[in-house]
């Protein structure tokens, strides 16, 4: 047995680098190919230009929307709603999840409710919340909150429950009191699940915000602008907004959550415990 898993040998590393380079190459090639096919179909005139604009048209529209500030305003509105609802979900979901895992009565009370509410798609509540809270920010934020809370709660609950009892024993033997046990062992021990929960709930929140903006339309937001553009057959506006939606989702997934993972559970070698 080697004393340290120092990583792959030099030859192996070279091979991996080559594979990575290859995959970037092919990825670029396949995306270019997809774009070329799209452009070809768009220019063939089989479809009306309004429905299938060429890529330069989309790019020009995108540029115009950036310049007149409307795209930025839509994005800011959407981000505001999603982050507000998502933060609220974390503030509520994580503590409740912890309480459920630590206290039997809380678990007994919450679990049936969570199991009953979780399978209700958040969009089913949009019409109801529109009646109650009107059209606009509040309804959208509440929908985002609803969509994001349950994965947060559920993952935190199972994370705290699955903290290795050996860690608790070891910490107890080293004189950790309840409070230290909680902050120094249970929270980091449950972190793979909590981070998975944060990730999942952001994905849910992101879907929810786009859908809620479409249904409970106000007059700003990326979801709203897509739906609105349909009425006027502005496929170029739709595609531009779609690109922004895709990019923001990607940025959050890769940059925000990716770096959180790299700084914590990846560094600690705890990834496998949470991904099943």
């Amino acid at each position, binding site marked *: *047995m*080697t*004393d*340290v*898993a120092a990583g792959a040998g030099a030859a192996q590393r070279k091979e991996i680098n080559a594979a990575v380079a290859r995959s970037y190459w092919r990825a670029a090639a396949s995306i270019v190919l997809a774009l070329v096919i799209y452009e070809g179909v768009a220019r063939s005139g089989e479809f009306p230009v309004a429905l299938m604009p060429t890529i330069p048209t989309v790019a020009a529209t995108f540029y115009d929307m950036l310049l007149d500030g409307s795209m930025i305003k839509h994005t800011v509105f959407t981000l505001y709603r999603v982050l507000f609802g998502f933060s609220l979900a974390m503030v509520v979901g994580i503590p409740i999840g912890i309480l459920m895992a630590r206290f039997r009565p809380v678990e007994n009370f919450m679990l049936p409710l969570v199991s009953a509410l979780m399978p209700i798609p958040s969009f089913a509540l949009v019409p109801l919340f529109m009646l109650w809270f009107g059209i606009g920010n509040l309804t959208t934020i509440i929908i985002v909150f609803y969509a994001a809370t349950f994965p947060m709660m559920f993952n935190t609950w199972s994370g705290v429950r699955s903290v*290795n009892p*050996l*860690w608790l*024993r*070891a*910490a*107890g*033997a*080293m*004189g*950790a*009191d309840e409070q*230290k046990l909680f902050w*120094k*062992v249970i929270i*980091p*021990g449950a*972190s793979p699940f909590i981070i998975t929960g944060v990730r999942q709930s952001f994905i849910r929140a992101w879907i929810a915000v786009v859908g809620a903006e479409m249904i409970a339309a106000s007059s700003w937001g990326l979801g709203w602008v897509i739906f609105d553009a349909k009425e006027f057959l502005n496929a170029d506006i739709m595609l531009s907004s779609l690109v922004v939606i895709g990019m923001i989702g990607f940025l959050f997934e890769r940059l925000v959550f990716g770096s959180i993972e790299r700084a*914590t559970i990846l*560094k*600690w*070698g*705890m990834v496998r415990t949470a991904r099943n």
Partner: protein
Amino acid sequence: MQEIEVTDVSLVYDTPAGQVHAVDHASFELKASEFLCLVGPSGCGKSTLLNILAGFLKPSGGEIKIGGKPVNGQGMDRGVVFQDFAQLFPWRTALGNVTFGLEMKGVPKEEREQIALEQLKLVKLEKFANAYPHHLSGGMQQRVAIARALAYNPSVLLMDEPFAALDALTRDDMQRLLAEVWRETRKTVIYVTHNVAEAVYLADRVVVMSPHPGRVKKEVVIDLPRPRDPLSVAFLEYQKQLLQELGEATAKPSARQ
């Protein structure tokens, strides 16, 4: 005065199938700095007994005294090492794991890191102070666990088959290292194992236990000079004697309940 006194300790579980006597009136004593091995077949209650000593389980009868004071729950007078590598906190480096107990005691950061580094030096891991557990091999992880249990200077070290999950070669290394650590620190050690050679190599005295119910069957003093030679005739004699005791313990389970 005896450092550890175990008097008539029992643990009875209630199960749907009736009562199970995991430990039945176990008694033994240890002098300070003595190395005691608990040996027995699986189900003889040796690990249960260790867990009672560590304070993780409450005995249903009997008493344990350490340094003259009755044991009640967990305490920092005892350090514990488990068999499972997963006992280390994966979110802390080797050094961070070793400092944990000192941190709980409220020792200032610089001081505790210095102490921890010394402990890591003792188990020959000072170079890996900043490595996370998942980068360490099983043997190294167990060495960190030993350093961690020693760092806050408990008088007693409780070890539950710490090397059982290691391969044979690494295990030999670990036993040598532990013998050295023990010689330097002079801790009182209770060490649970089912490996007879390991017990003869490490222990001053071996307590053999028999299962169903878990009882102390026999005590054997290992009167051999250290460092011990596992191939010497005397060593093999002890091994034979213990194996015989164990064979009897396994073959003749006394009448149930």
